[in-house]
C-alpha cells in the first residue's frame, strides 16, 4: 500500500457497521421473533473511536500559534460542519416533508415544527433540546461535533497534555460513569444531571479514539509481524460482529468497546493493510455509509409497517436495499447540486473580476 493511498479497509468497515446499525434500528420498529444484530448499536462505538482517531490525526497535522488558536479551531470546526452538512440537510428536509405529508400536519403544526428543527439543522440536538424524533439517530453527529468543538482548542494548544493526560482521564471517567448508570451502551437521551448520556458516550469514545491515534503515532503496532496484526484484527472484528449479533455473552459492551479501539488502531496501521481494498469501489462504500446512516429512520418509517408476508429475511434485505438506493439518490442529487453551486459561484466571481 502506498503510504499516500486512502485506507480502503476503514471505508469497508464503515459500510459494514453502518449496515449493522440500520438493521438494529429496523428491528426496533418490527416484532420479528429472531432478528439479527440485536446489539447492533455497538456499531456506533466503531464510528466514535474512528472519528476520534481521525480527529487527532487531522489536528496533529495543523501547526498552531497561540495568537490564532481560536481562529484555527473555528476554521477546523467549520470545515468539519460543512463536510457533514449537505447530506444532513437533504435528509432533514426529506424527513420534514415526509412528516408533513404522512402525518397530515396542519399549517400551524408544520410551521412550528419547522422552527423547532433549528437545533436539528445545526446538529445541536445532543444538548437535550430537540423535537423531530425521526432524526433521533443524528445524536451521534451532534455529540461528535460538540465534543470536537470543546476539545479542539485544547488539543491544538496543549498537545502533549491533551494526549497524555486529558484523553485518558476523559476515557476512564466518562465511560466509568456510564458503566455505573447502566452496564451496557444502549442509551443516548437519558439526562444524567449535567448532560445526556449520548454526549458523555461521545466524549469518552472520541477521547479513546485520540488515544488510539497516540498509540498508532508511536508505531507500537508496527513492532508486531503483519500476519499477527491481521489475525488479531480479524479476530477482534469477528468477536465484535458476533457480539452485535448476540451470539456471545462472554464480554459486555464496554469490553467490546476496548476491543474495537485495539482493532481500529491496527486497521489504520499500514503494516496491516490489505492493498486489494484500496480501490474506488471500496472508497465509495465508505462514502455511502454516511447517507446510509442518515436515511435509515426515514426509510424505516415507510418500509417497516409494510407486511410483505415473506418473513424477516426478505423484509430486512428489502429495507437495506431501499436505504442504499435512497442514499445513492442523495449522493447523486446533493453532489451535483454542490458542483453546480460551485460552478455558478465561480462564474459569478469571474464576471465580478
Amino acid at each position: 500500500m502506498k503510504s499516500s493511498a486512502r485506507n480502503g479497509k476503514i471505508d469497508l468497515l464503515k459500510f459494514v457497521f453502518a449496515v449493522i446499525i440500520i438493521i438494529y434500528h429496523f428491528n426496533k420498529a418490527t416484532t420479528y421473533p429472531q432478528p439479527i444484530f440485536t446489539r447492533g448499536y455497538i456499531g456506533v462505538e466503531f464510528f466514535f473511536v474512528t472519528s476520534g482517531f481521525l480527529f487527532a490525526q487531522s489536528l496533529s497535522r495543523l501547526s498552531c500559534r497561540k495568537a490564532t488558536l481560536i481562529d484555527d479551531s473555528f476554521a477546523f470546526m467549520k470545515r468539519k460542519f460543512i463536510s457533514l452538512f449537505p447530506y444532513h440537510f437533504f435528509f432533514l428536509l426529506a424527513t420534514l416533508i415526509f412528516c408533513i405529508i404522512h402525518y397530515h400536519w396542519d399549517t400551524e403544526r408544520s410551521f412550528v415544527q419547522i422552527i423547532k428543527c433549528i437545533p436539528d439543522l445545526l446538529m445541536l440536538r445532543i444538548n437535550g433540546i430537540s423535537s423531530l424524533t425521526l432524526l433521533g439517530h443524528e445524536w451521534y453527529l451532534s455529540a461528535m461535533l460538540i465534543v470536537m468543538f470543546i476539545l479542539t482548542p485544547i488539543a491544538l494548544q496543549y498537545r502533549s497534555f491533551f494526549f497524555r493526560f486529558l484523553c485518558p482521564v476523559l476515557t476512564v471517567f466518562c465511560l466509568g460513569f456510564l458503566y455505573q448508570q447502566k452496564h451496557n451502551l444502549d442509551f443516548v437521551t437519558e439526562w444524567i444531571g449535567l448532560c445526556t448520556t449520548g454526549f458523555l458516550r461521545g466524549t469518552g469514545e472520541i477521547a479513546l479514539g485520540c488515544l488510539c491515534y497516540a498509540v498508532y503515532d508511536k508505531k507500537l503496532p508496527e513492532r508486531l509481524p503483519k500476519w499477527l496484526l491481521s489475525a488479531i484484527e480479524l479476530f477482534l472484528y469477528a468477536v465484535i460482529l458476533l457480539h452485535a449479533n448476540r451470539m456471545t455473552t462472554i464480554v459486555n459492551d464496554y469490553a467490546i468497546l476496548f476491543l474495537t479501539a485495539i482493532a481500529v488502531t491496527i486497521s489504520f496501521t499500514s503494516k496491516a493493510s490489505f492493498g486489494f481494498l484500496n480501490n474506488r469501489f471500496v472508497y465509495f462504500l465508505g462514502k455511502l455509509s454516511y447517507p446510509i446512516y442518515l436515511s435509515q429512520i426515514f426509510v424505516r418509517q415507510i418500509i417497516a409497517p409494510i407486511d410483505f408476508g415473506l418473513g424477516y429475511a426478505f423484509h430486512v434485505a428489502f429495507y437495506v436495499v431501499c436505504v442504499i438506493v435512497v442514499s445513492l439518490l442523495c449522493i447523486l442529487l446533493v453532489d451535483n447540486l454542490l458542483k453546480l453551486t460551485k460552478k455558478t459561484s465561480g462564474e459569478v466571481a469571474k464576471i465580478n473580476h
Partner: protein
Amino acid sequence: MFALKSSARNGKIDLLKFLFSIMVIIFHFGKGLYNYDLFTKGYIAVEFFFITSGFLFAKSLAKYPYQKDTFLKDSTLFMKRKFLSFFPYHLFFFIACFLYVVFDQHLGIRTGFSFFCSTIPDLLMLQMGGISGLSLLRYEWYISAMLIVMFLLTPLAIRYRKAFLYYFCPILFLAITGWLFAQSHSLNVVREWTGLCYEALLRATAELALGCICYAIWENKFWEKLPKAFLLLIEWGIYTIVFLYSCKLFTGLGDFFALFLLGIAVPISFTDKASLGFLNNRVVYFLGKISFPIYLSQLLVIEIIKEYDFNSPTLHTLVYIGCVISAALICMLVTDNLLRLFRHLRTKLNNRKEDVS
C-alpha cells in the same frame, strides 16, 4: 430620508424594548389578578432583554482592549459604569417601594431600620445572590442577574476576547439551555434554587452568552450578505411569532425555540442593512429610555391599584398601563433633573477648588 447614518442610534431596538417591556408588565399584571389570554407567556420578553444586553455587552467590551497591567481595573471600571447607568432610576423606585412598605405596614423606627438592613442587597441590586428583603422589587431579578453574570464574565471577556465569543459563549449557551430544558422545559424560572445558585443566574448566563454569540455573528457581517427585504421579513416574522407565542398561540413552539428565534432576530435588528430610518427619531429613542422605569415601576403600581374594583379587566389593565407609564415619567423627570442638578453642583465645586488652588 430613510438612510441610516452609521452614527445614528438604532431606533428599532428602542421601539422593541418599549414593546417588550409593555408585554412583561401586562404579563405580571394578568398573572396576579386576571387569567386573560393576553401575554400569558409574556415572560418570554425577558429573553429579548437578556439577548440584547449580551449583544451590547460584547459590543461595549470591544472598547476595552486587553492590557495586562490594567485589565482588572478596566473590568471594574466597566462594571462600575454599568451599575451607575441603572442606579438612579433603581434608587428612585427603591425609595418609593421602601417608603410604601414603611407606611403601609406602619413600621416603627426599630422595625423600619431592621427592614432597611434586610433590603441592602436589593439596594445594591444583588438580590440574585440569594438574599433579598424587598419583595416589591422582586422583578428587578433581571437587572441583578445581568449585573452579577456580567461581573463574572467581564474579566474573561476582556482577557480572552476571541475565545470568549467563539468558544466559551457557545459552550455556556448549549450546556445551560440543555440543563434548563431537562429541569423544567420552560424558561419561566427565576427563584428556583439549583443547589448552587438561582436558576435565574443560569438563565441570564445562557442568554447573555447567546447575545454575545449574536454579536460575533453580527461582527462577521453574516446578515449583510442577505438582501434587505429578506432580512426584514425574517426579523419581523420572528417578532410576530414571539408576540403571538406570548399570547398563547403557537403553543407547540416551546420557550427554548422562541429563544432560538430571538437569537436570530436580535442580530438582524442591529444590522445596518435591516435598519428602518424612520424609527431613528427622538420619540422612539424616548420610548426606549422609558422602558426601563416602566419595568421598575410595575409591581409598586400593581400594589397600589390592585385593590380598586374597575369591573372590567380591560379597563383595569389600561388604567394600570397608564399608571405605570405615568410613574415612569415622574421617575424620569425627578431623577434626570436631580442628576443634572447634582452634576451642575459638582462642576461648580470643582471649578471653585481649581480657582482656590
